[in-house]
């Protein structure tokens, strides 16, 4: 039996060998971006202070003018206070395009921000392209969203996230990192209570060749057919998502009922398939 040190060393060596970091140049670029962001924030703060200072001085001058005797000379030259410098400061989430609109209200806005902020951490995608809220939907007292960042030309990875929130805004975001681009993936959750019923949720990217996605379950849940949501030309895949009804609460809390997902083209031919790993985990 090897001891703690040996086993930790094995883990560390494997991580060092199999991990991928984008390199020193990428770290330098990221550092520069970070510095610019911080500089932007500081400049905005300074501008605010300056503006407030000028406003205060103007008010003071105005008060003094009221107290001073009227001038007997002509009006002095008018000076205008300089407007605060324009500062371009993007929050971490960056710009978000919403071709499909977005959930309403401040809570909806927060959901979009939660999903896209997490997406901003993904090391991949075209930095020149904003994140896109590609799909969202409602059901059973919940809102689900999918956001993704268009990949760079030729990039074989995809940055996408999904979020599932209650009406109050409480919820979770599934970050998928820069996953290798495959024709079909699935993620989701289960045991979502709505009144006396329990629901599961399945979501993922699918090849653009697919016209239908069929989700197969264990525990006697009938198959679920979903129509892919068109993500547009900037994405190499489309997305799908939907809810399924569970007959009861699943007593295996970490087990997903989804066992297989199959994508079919318009002619009904299978174009992709993924098998959910047995045991804990909600992905395939």
């Amino acid at each position: 039996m090897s001891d703690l040190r040996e086993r930790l060393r094995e883990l560390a060596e494997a991580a060092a060998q199999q991990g991928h970091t984008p390199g020193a140049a990428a770290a330098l670029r990221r550092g520069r971006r970070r510095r610019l962001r911080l500089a932007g924030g500081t400049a905005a703060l300074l501008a605010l202070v300056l503006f407030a200072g000028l406003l205060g001085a103007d008010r003071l001058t105005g008060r003094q003018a009221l107290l001073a005797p009227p001038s007997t000379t002509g009006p002095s030259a008018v000076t205008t206070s300089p407007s605060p410098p324009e500062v371009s400061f993007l929050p971490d989430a960056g710009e978000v395009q919403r071709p499909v609109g977005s959930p309403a209200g401040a809570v909806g806005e927060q959901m979009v921000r939660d999903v896209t902020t997490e997406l901003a951490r993904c090391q991949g995608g075209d930095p020149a392209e904003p994140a896109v809220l590609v799909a969202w939907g409602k059901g059973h007292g919940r809102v689900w969203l999918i956001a993704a960042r268009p990949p760079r030309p030729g990039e074989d990875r995809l940055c996408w996230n999904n979020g599932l929130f209650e009406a109050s805004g409480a919820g979770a975001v599934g970050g998928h990192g820069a996953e290798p681009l495959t024709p079909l993936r699935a993620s989701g959750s289960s045991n979502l209570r709505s009144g006396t019923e329990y629901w599961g949720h399945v979501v993922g990217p699918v090849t653009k060749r697919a016209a239908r996605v069929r989700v197969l379950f264990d525990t006697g849940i009938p198959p679920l057919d979903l129509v892919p949501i068109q993500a547009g030309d900037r994405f190499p895949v489309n997305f799908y998502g939907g809810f399924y009804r569970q007959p009861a609460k699943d007593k295996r809390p970490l087990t997903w009922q989804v066992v297989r997902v199959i994508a079919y083209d318009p002619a009904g031919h299978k174009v992709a398939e993924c098998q959910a790993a047995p045991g804990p985990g909600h992905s395939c």
Partner: protein
Amino acid sequence: MAGSGSFEEFYSGAVGRLLGQLFPVTGDLHEAEEVVQEAFARASVRWPRLRDYDVPEAWVRRVAMNLAADRARSLRRQARAILRLSPPPEVPAVSVEALALAEALRTLPVRQRQAVVLHYLADLPVEEVARTLAVPDGTVKSLLSRGRRALAARLGEPEEVLDRR
């Protein structure tokens, strides 16, 4: 290392080691890559000063450890709805024993994980672990003791076996 090297040399010399040290703390290879890269990005901004440090790697490690702890706390907050949306953590191919350890480490509080990794993997003495985590020496001893005990229980092995030198 101190004084003369370029950032690129420093990066290529240290990134693998730090990735190896951060993976057992985050429990997810992608997370480890992310915090290590962010720590290096921060180091790049301060490189003119950092290069003169005796061990610039210690600074990057401390930043990466702090980022890992922040992210662990943030993830805990996000998990308030008890929904499992994410795929299982990305783990490199290792032996069954090492995999069991990775899984057992994930059940420890992040501070215990950090103390165990810094002491047993980075071979830092208790005082240095305390400086890195900005806690008193006694706290580190307590974190190590509780961490060892919890790991032994999770792995079903006597504590002495884990602590063998």
